């Protein structure tokens, strides 16, 4: 019996005291029973309760599996405190004040690299919060320089997270806002700017004092130098100043951009310009910083995360890896310091584009702007800012009611703007569709395409319902009344406009496929053909809308004598219609050219290994077909309309010549818009190259076995150029 008691005591000692057993119960050693009972079990037999499910059991985290168990013993420290006690993040960083400043600059640089890496889609815990000083920010309060920098970094991270999570553009990049267990919020961060300002003030006085000393002038104010070595004082003061000022202005940029109704955009632009100039000073400081390092610790200076090339003090990503998720995070590579600066330059340029947007109230211009903005592939943070600017408090720029925006786009007569009509269920639904569309257009290309494909259904459903309602409510009335009912008229305009947007979305969906490289060359033919069909419908709806607008204008001015032909001309020659015509000719030309090549020489024949052409047609256009965009389009229609295509016929049709002609005529109307002029030039080049290629193919003859035709996107991201070679 005494033995047993000893055993029990021994067991108790090996157990952690902080884990109590229940009331009236004890921790009893079960190992002997388990060993004995397992012996009695058959192979494959399990002891489990009734709620056991093997499927659920399969998702259990396996302890001690390096890929699943984040808590597994890494040879590092077990906690931040232990790491600090062992001197991994000393304060001050060195007893030598010069070395101390050097080390602080390295930390600043590495944090910049971490921040850029975070923006690029890695977790906060593995990047910015791998900094031990940041994890225990209160510790640094005696070291004002480091403390102020850590505070502004934390405040900036908070601002960025709130922007991204408000915009919800991060759905596809959800690592971004994960911050479990990290000390992200702290008291006094609202004062971070004033602390930073006073540090900046001190250093600039130190710089002034050092200059005065250099010119052998009497020092006006009595101030301690930044560090001990007078020869390096100037360089270090400057290196610190540009880094601190960059943080200050960047924080201001983020704050200004969040002001409601775009009120801070002008000021934000000023701060962006200052940020960019400080960034270039940071880049220039590298020469000085590197010249003062005796040994280069980072092997590859170009890949280093600091300007000096030294390894920064006080970073350990393994310390908080347990917080981010139950499973260990994947190893990541922090961007180099050079790449980080490049990233921030791009981010600031992207933000500048947003800030310089004129906040047009015309939806067509807004859509054009967003699409144009996406061309430069902006990163998450910039896209989130754009989205928050566009949709604020359910209003465009937080300023214009979407009902007004839509009625302006449709050119609704002013008497349709009464509040009763705004409560109409169709109007409410349409507003929701437009808001969603704007938000989706701000997401990254891959996610955007997926979502666009899905909302097509909503848009087409909306059109169908509106059409049905129109028939139901106004069917009888039409016969009775000669004069059109206002409500009917407005609903008809709504319908046309909604259909036009649906085709616009479908066209964007198809075009994004080229940018994401989703189509293989032997599928180009069907994609261009489908695009051609969509663009034709889009043009059709656009012309109807413009003629509606023409009608209402005519009536407004009461000039009944204006001939209908004149209005017609005006519509046909409107720049947006003409630009659409260019795209139309290009896609038709490319579809037919590809079909002819296929028909005549069997190049671009679909290999039949995994799926045939019809299956691919369905795979690519399933979402469009489901949404009936457009109706009655099938693979057979595609085959039917392309099977007679031959090179000589296509040359006769001169699709590319037509595209060139129209784009030339457009130059006058777009002369003030450099981006659109660039687009016209691209269209012309695509048309020109394809025209020549067609002639060469015709001359050589498609049956010539040495003829090699390939398609490249060298001149336009969507419209390919045929490249003809002879082997």
């Amino acid at each position: 019996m005494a033995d047993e008691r000893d055993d029990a005591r021994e067991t108790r000692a090996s157990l952690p005291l902080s884990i109590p057993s229940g009331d009236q119960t004890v921790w009893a050693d079960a190992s002997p029973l388990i060993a004995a009972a397992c012996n009695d079990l058959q192979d494959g037999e399990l002891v489990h309760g009734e709620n056991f499910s093997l499927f659920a059991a399969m998702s259990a985290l396996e302890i001690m599996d390096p890929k699943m168990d984040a808590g597994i013993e890494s040879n590092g420290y077990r906690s931040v405190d232990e790491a600090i006690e062992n001197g991994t993040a000393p304060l001050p960083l060195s007893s030598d004040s010069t070395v101390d400043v050097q080390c602080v600059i390295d930390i600043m640089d590495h944090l910049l690299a971490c921040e850029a890496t975070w923006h690029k889609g890695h977790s906060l815990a593995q990047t910015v919060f791998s900094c031990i000083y940041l994890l225990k920010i209160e510790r640094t309060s005696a070291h004002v320089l480091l403390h102020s920098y850590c505070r502004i970094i934390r405040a900036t991270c908070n601002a960025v997270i709130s922007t991204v999570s408000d915009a919800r553009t991060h759905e596809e990049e959800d690592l971004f806002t994960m911050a479990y267990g990290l000390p992200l919020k702290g008291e006094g961060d609202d004062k971070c700017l004033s602390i930073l300002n006073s540090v900046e003030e001190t250093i600039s006085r130190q710089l002034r004092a050092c200059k005065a000393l250099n010119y052998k002038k009497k020092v006006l104010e009595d101030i301690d130098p930044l560090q001990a070595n007078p020869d390096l004082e100037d360089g270090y003061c400057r290196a610190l100043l540009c880094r601190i000022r960059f943080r200050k202005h960047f924080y201001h940029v983020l704050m200004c951009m969040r002001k409601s109704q775009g009120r801070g955009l002008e000021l934000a632009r000023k701060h962006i310009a200052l940020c960019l100039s400080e960034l270039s000073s940071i880049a220039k400081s590298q020469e000085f910083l590197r010249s003062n390092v005796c040994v280069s610790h980072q092997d590859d200076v170009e890949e280093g995360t600091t300007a000096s090339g030294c390894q920064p003090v006080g970073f350990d990503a393994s310390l908080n890896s347990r917080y981010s998720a139950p499973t260990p995070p994947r190893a990541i590579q922090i961007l180099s310091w050079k790449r980080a600066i490049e990233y921030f330059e791009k981010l600031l340029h992207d933000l500048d584009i947003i800030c310089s947007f004129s906040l047009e109230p015309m939806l067509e211009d807004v859509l054009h702007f967003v699409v144009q903005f996406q061309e430069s592939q902006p990163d998450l943070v910039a896209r989130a800012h754009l989205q928050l600017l566009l949709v604020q408090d359910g209003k465009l720029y937080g300023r214009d009611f979407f009902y007004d925006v839509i009625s302006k786009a449709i050119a609704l007569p002013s008497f349709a703007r009464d509040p009763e009509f705004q409560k109409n269920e169709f109007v409410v639904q349409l507003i929701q569709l437009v808001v969603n569309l704007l938000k989706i257009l701000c997401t990254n290309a891959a996610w955007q395409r997926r979502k666009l494909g899905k909302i097509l259904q909503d848009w087409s459903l909306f059109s169908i319902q509106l059409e049905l309602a129109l028939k139901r409510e106004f069917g009888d009335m039409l016969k009775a009344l000669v004069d059109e009912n206002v409500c009917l008229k407005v609903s008809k305009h709504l319908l046309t406009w909604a259909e036009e947007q649906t085709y616009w979305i479908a066209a964007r969906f198809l075009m994004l496929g080229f940018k994401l490289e989703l189509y293989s060359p032997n599928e180009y033919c069907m994609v261009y053909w489908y695009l051609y069909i969509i663009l034709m419908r889009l043009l059709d709806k656009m012309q109807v809308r413009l003629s509606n607008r023409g009608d209402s204008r005519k009536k407004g001015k009461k000039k009944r004598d204006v001939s209908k032909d004149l209005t017609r001309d005006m519509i046909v020659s409107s720049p947006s219609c003409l630009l659409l015509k260019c795209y139309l000719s290009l896609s038709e030309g490319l579809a037919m050219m590809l079909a002819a090549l296929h028909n005549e020489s069997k190049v671009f024949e679909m290999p039949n290994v995994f799926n045939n052409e019809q299956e691919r047609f369905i795979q690519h256009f399933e979402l469009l077909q489901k949404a009936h965009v457009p109706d009655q389009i099938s693979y057979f229609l595609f085959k039917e309309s392309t099977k007679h295509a031959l090179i000589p016929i296509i040359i006769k049709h001169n699709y590319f010549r037509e595209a060139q002609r129209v784009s030339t005529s457009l130059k006058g109307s777009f002369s003030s818009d450099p981006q659109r002029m660039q687009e016209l030039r691209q269209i012309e080049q695509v048309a020109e190259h394809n025209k020549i290629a067609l002639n060469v193919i015709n001359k050589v003859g498609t049956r010539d076995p040495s003829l090699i035709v390939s398609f490249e996107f060298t001149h336009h991201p969507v419209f390919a150029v045929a490249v003809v070679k002879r082997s």
Partner: protein
Amino acid sequence: MEGFSESTSALQNPQDFHSDRPGASHSAANNNSPLVAQLQKLLFHRMLIGVNDGRFFLGVFHCIDKQGNIILQDAVEYRNTRRSATSPMDQRCLGLILIPASCRSSCHVDCSIEEQLSLLSLQK
């Protein structure tokens, strides 16, 4: 994992469950060993398992296979914040976990005094 390759472990190779091999896996409810019956009674008790690297896992006893691999439900991980054993402990919720027998160094169940006595009687 190497330790388990010798004999088939139902928990670590769950795909075996889907094979048509007779007797691939089944509940031990029909096993007539008194020891197995006693182990069965411990299901749903709180269980505290220590592993080789000094961590402890506290969770609800959910399942065990012949090789001694244990599944705990609603498990919490306890680990020392410093290398010394007396340092304060840090905890983290993990949910459903599988603890392979190879790394299990101790195993205790939360039970009444009477249950403990019957467990102790086994050791003799």
